[in-house]
């Protein structure tokens, strides 16, 4: 089975764009959100480019069908950004939609069939209320077993958390540190849905309590706040509100080109050096609930293609739909031995000033998780970090040359890992 795979030719990223993430009014269409990201991408291409150079368009999206009653979304988006008549493809792999779309765009360019491909993702979730959104998301679960068991996505990841706690002694507090860290990073990202740290939340909540004539809350630390069940209620034990990513709207996109053309767009392209993807069973059928096999397989493929190992990665974007997912990702990607990730988080190793910064944009927790936009949204951040253009949240690691993006669909029944290098 083990086969060494490589790209048919080199592929580079030369532009990246992101809309502001957040809850947009109902009248804002999915298609218009993508325009926001595309305009941002246009301004990111150092030497400028003519969009008529784009050969094809790949779009990741979970369900404009259910969220907005619109299907055939890819040509509709292409229409808004002047790409007609290029071929368009919509990809749905749950929350990994645009991570997979990115990989497919890379494979298409590497094959030689296209030279310049626009790939992105978009989701407009907030037209529906939270229970309706939960139901749409649950349609990625097994309708014969998981749905009738009453499982929700928080429930699924909570089940993994309970197993991780039993096997490795992981605690609720360990998970809270991940939320604290990602909100700190998000507070440095003006495009984040919640661009506020937990300290900022505490100040706001304390002010509003005083305004209402209630006693001033007595939290001494961010952890006190996280342990306060009024502020941070249980959603699916052991996961609480601040363990869950946000429901929001947003779009992201990336310009992928053949390596030999990269200098026409910029003097500092980022190269795609590894890509891997795998599928997995529904949760119960797996051998281990404390790890995602598809993530390990996808990572192995990507590392082998890139001829690097986990120790070479300087910055990573991992799929923190729930805090436990970030912890498991750190172990599945080989950054830490199973059971060792929690200590590293507590020691600050994954903060922007740590030795392996993770989710520097705030992650899905703080930046937000507009499902289809998340995969390429991660690539946007890696592009910025490797080019040292991340501003206040630029990592402190010297010579950030290798970045990794890990994007999970549903409970890990799809995982895609992409590795990037600046030369």
């Amino acid at each position, binding site marked *: 089975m083990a086969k060494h795979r490589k790209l048919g030719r080199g592929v580079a990223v030369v532009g990246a764009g992101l809309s502001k993430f957040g809850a947009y009014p109902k009248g804002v269409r999915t298609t218009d959100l993508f325009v926001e990201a595309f305009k941002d991408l246009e301004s990111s291409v150092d030497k400028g480019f003519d969009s008529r150079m784009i050969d094809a368009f790949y779009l990741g999206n979970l369900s404009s069908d259910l969220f907005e009653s619109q299907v055939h979304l890819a040509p509709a988006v292409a229409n808004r950004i002047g790409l007609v008549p290029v071929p368009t493809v919509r990809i749905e792999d749950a929350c990994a939609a645009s991570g997979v779309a990115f990989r497919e765009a890379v494979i298409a360019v590497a094959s030689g069939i296209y030279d310049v491909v626009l790939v992105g993702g978009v989701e407009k979730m907030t037209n529906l209320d939270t*229970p*309706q959104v*939960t*139901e749409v998301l*649950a349609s990625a679960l*097994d*309708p*014969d*077993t*998981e*749905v*009738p*068991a*009453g*499982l*929700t996505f*928080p*429930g699924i990841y*909570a*089940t*993994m*958390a*309970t*197993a991780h706690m*039993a096997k490795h002694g992981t605690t609720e507090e360990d998970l809270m540190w991940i939320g604290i860290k990602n909100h700190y990073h998000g507070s440095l990202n003006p495009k984040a849905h919640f661009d506020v740290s937990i300290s900022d939340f505490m100040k706001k909540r304390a002010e509003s309590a005083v305004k209402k004539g209630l006693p001033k809350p007595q939290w001494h630390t961010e952890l006190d706040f996280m342990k306060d069940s009024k502020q941070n*209620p*249980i*959603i*699916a*034990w*052991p*996961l609480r509100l601040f363990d869950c990513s946000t429901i929001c709207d947003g779009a992201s996109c990336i310009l992928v080109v053949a390596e030999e053309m990269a200098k026409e767009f910029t003097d500092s392209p980022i190269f795609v050096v590894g890509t891997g993807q795998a599928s997995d*069973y*529904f*949760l*119960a*059928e797996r051998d281990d*609930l404390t790890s995602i096999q598809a993530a390990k397989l996808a990572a192995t493929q990507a590392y082998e293609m890139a001829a690097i190992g986990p120790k070479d990665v300087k910055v990573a974007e991992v799929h923190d739909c729930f805090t436990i997912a970030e912890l498991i990702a750190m172990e599945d990607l080989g950054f830490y031995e199973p059971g060792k990730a929690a200590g590293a988080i507590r020691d600050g190793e994954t903060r922007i000033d740590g030795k392996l910064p993770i989710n520097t944009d705030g992650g899905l927790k703080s930046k937000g998780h507009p499902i289809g936009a998340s995969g390429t949204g991660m690539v946007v951040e890696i592009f910025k970090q490797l080019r040292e253009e991340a501003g206040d949240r630029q990592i402190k690691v010297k010579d950030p040359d290798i970045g990794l993006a890990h994007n999970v669909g549903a409970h890990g029944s799809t995982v895609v890992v992409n590795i990037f290098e600046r030369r």
Partner: protein
Amino acid sequence: MALEEKFAEVENNEFYSAAYQRFLAEGKLIGSRCRTCGHVCVPPKPICPGCHGGEMVLEEMKGKGRLLSYTVITVAPPLMVEEGYDRNNPYCSGIVELEEGAKVPARIVNVNVRNPEKIELGMGMSIKYLKIGQGNERKTFLAFEPTP
């Protein structure tokens, strides 16, 4: 073969979804066992995920197992809200490993949902079929409870 017969054959295929649900309504938890490698799956699968062989036989599970993992859900999906579950009335869902080796997600009943940290992993579980709803809407849900 007439088209109707073909459709009926697909609907009645014991390795497909409709049959699994029908058996559940009769109070039977059905799985498949691979004749070649012995791998057991619940619900049944037409093709073995263990050896990729296609010689599968249907097998009724005995309904005994142990609790592998669980959660107690306070923010319920519409299906559970209709049954009266919410923040003040949370419910437990989990994964049970059956004696036959297959693992299934199920509702976990008769456990103390007010103290989720006290629910014991590894404890023995016995099957229970929950009948919910009235008339045509009546459905059977797979549940397990601690073995006394």
